[in-house]
């Protein structure tokens, strides 16, 4: 459920810059309007409505393609449909363009992840019956060049998925972690305990699923890295930003810029992360802690991160 790139309700996703202006645009949703996505133009300080989910739906998560031209989102209805004695949620994967136009809507998707090149998307098809009772049916691929064809990759059951940038493999988690090769269509069980790898693949983390605590690992040794000065149970925000650096902390308040190599923080700040520019290592932070009901101009700060 937790995805590093996707944080429901408040987080804005970086528009990975394919153009100069795109790096200053961020997608966000507010706390109290979980069915509307906005684009914030940091340069001109203008918010524009991008997409609105159908009535009765909420947007659970959203993420920009690495190429920056499309946005994927998961929208869920509130009242579950009945199926005999059971009810399941309608959960759609929606792909829109930069203008908010719907390019593709796929029903019954549990999670998804963009390919590193941004030209494909991998997703878990299945039903969500609520209360963490998921019935995954396997992993599918969708190429943006052919939106009419959904290609089944694997029957592996999964609740979470991530397409790694360092080796172009897809990692999925259920009880164990499996590595899927999208070219060979093979699946291999691994000993990894998480699926979210750093850009260089040297490290990975396991999110704080169900309060069991955030854990960082060295990929080579597959051993957990002891985190200094961090209460891993309080970590409910986690996001790789560049190389082997990540931001962890409380989703609302205190954050730390962490070096996975050192297992220690380089710096800290408070506020809500709304975007990061990897070219300049600048981060955009909303400083109004308690009221994320919009992006008040005065509340946004841009900070340069020292990533050594």
């Amino acid at each position, binding site marked *: 459920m937790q995805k590093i790139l996707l944080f*429901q309700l408040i987080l804005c996703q970086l528009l990975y810059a394919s153009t100069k202006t795109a790096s200053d645009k961020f997608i966000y949703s507010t706390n*109290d309007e979980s069915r509307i996505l906005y684009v914030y133009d940091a340069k001109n300080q203008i918010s524009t409505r991008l997409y609105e989910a159908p009535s*009765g739906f909420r947007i659970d998560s959203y993420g920009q393609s690495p190429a920056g031209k499309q946005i994927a989102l998961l929208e*869920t209805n*509130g009242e*579950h449909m009945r199926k005999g004695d059971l*009810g399941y949620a309608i959960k759609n994967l929606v792909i829109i363009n930069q203008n908010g136009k719907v390019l593709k809507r796929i029903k019954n998707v549990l999670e998804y992840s963009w390919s590193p090149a941004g030209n494909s998307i991998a997703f878990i098809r299945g039903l969500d019956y609520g209360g963490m009772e998921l019935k995954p049916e396997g992993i599918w691929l969708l190429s943006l060049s052919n939106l009419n064809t959904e290609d089944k990759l694997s029957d592996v059951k999964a609740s979470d998925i991530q397409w790694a940038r360092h080796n172009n493999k897809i990692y999925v988690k259920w009880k164990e972690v499996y590595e899927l090769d999208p070219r060979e269509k093979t699946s291999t069980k691994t000993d990894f305990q998480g699926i979210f790898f750093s850009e260089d693949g040297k490290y990975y983390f396991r999110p704080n699923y169900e309060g069991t605590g955030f854990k960082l690992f060295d990929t080579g040794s597959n051993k957990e890295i002891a985190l200094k000065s961090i209460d891993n149970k309080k970590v*409910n925000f986690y996001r790789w930003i560049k190389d082997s650096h990540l931001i962890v902390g409380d989703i609302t308040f205190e954050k730390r810029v962490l070096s996975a190599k050192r297992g220690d923080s380089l710096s800290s700040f408070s506020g809500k992360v709304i975007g990061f520019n990897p070219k300049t290592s600048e981060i955009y932070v909303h400083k109004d802690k308690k*009221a994320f009901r919009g992006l008040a101009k005065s509340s946004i700060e841009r900070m340069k991160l020292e990533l050594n």
Partner: protein
Amino acid sequence: MHLRNNLNVMFNSQNLRRFAVIELITIVVLVCSGCEQPNITADAAIWISLPESRPRSGDNYSITVNWRFRSGASVVPGHYPLRLEIIGPDGISQAIVNGLYIDIDLDDQQHSLQWIWDGRVSTPDRGRRPAPPGDYTLYVSAAEYHFSATAKVYPNDYDQDGDNISDAIENENSGVQITFGTNTYDYVVDNLSRPPVISWYLSSGDWYANRGTHEYSLAKDTRGNGCLYNGLRIADQSTGYRYYPNTDPTDTDNWATLLLINELEQVARVWGATHSDYPMTTLDFSKQNGESFPPHDGHQNGLDADIMYIGSGTYQYGSFIVVNVGSYDATASLELMQLFNNLASVDRIWTSDQALADYYSTDKIQYLSGHTNHFHVDFLDADGSQSCP
């Protein structure tokens, strides 16, 4: 003893001291349950008034200490400590209340002081639990005047045998095997018209004496990598809650430590008192022996409970409520979370209602993604971590 010491100072005479002691050790003993001022003609009296209602196990029990001293009473006016002791049906002291004081004036007026007993007794390992039904002795003393009364604790309507396991849970777990010591026992319901017991043939044995401590039900290792020993099942329904198995086979996903079940039922009773038409819906707990329960990352040792959010409309069994959509009622959902926070030994409560977490969170109510259609309650491991076999 305080008064005697004072008298020793004031009356430095053997005769006077003997006189004083004789007068002051006058003990008035009355069995007084629900009565008002007893028919006492003495110059000095201290007595207890008990409520006319029928206090039940776990209910607050209002105890009123009264005193009256006439001008002829042989006591020095002043500020005296009051000692109150509660002795259980088994003769074991359950509470000694210190820190209370009374002012004695020789004014022939009745004075009173009220103290609320929470209707609970202490257990060695699990904190305070509802006092088992029976006759409790209240013993009060001040200025060397003493009084004792019998306070009757009645069974409550959800736990008629007063063993701190609700009748619903005992019925639900009839036939469940429990290992205690070197033996394995079944929960036994010998007659459903009577309160079920854990095991009728052990009711007078060692295990019975052990009831209330429940240390046979244990969470081992961690919620993310652990197991459950002698877990019990939450009932299908009882006051304030209903269990919804969803896609899991019935009775495979509703196992937990007895402590969790007791505390959850307590929350449900309080919730149900004001929301009788909208019970909370319980979802996944743990498997019978704990261990892996995918796709859950926790729920492995009987300390986790998933609870459905509350909607503003009519209660519909099994219909999920989703944060910020449709009939989701943030205020009522927060109320329920706060009940868990206040009444149960909770480590954390996880919700994906970001606005709620922003505005009303405490250290225990926090945001976590993946919880849009239920919130998750982590209970503390009361007995500390033990290792799975």
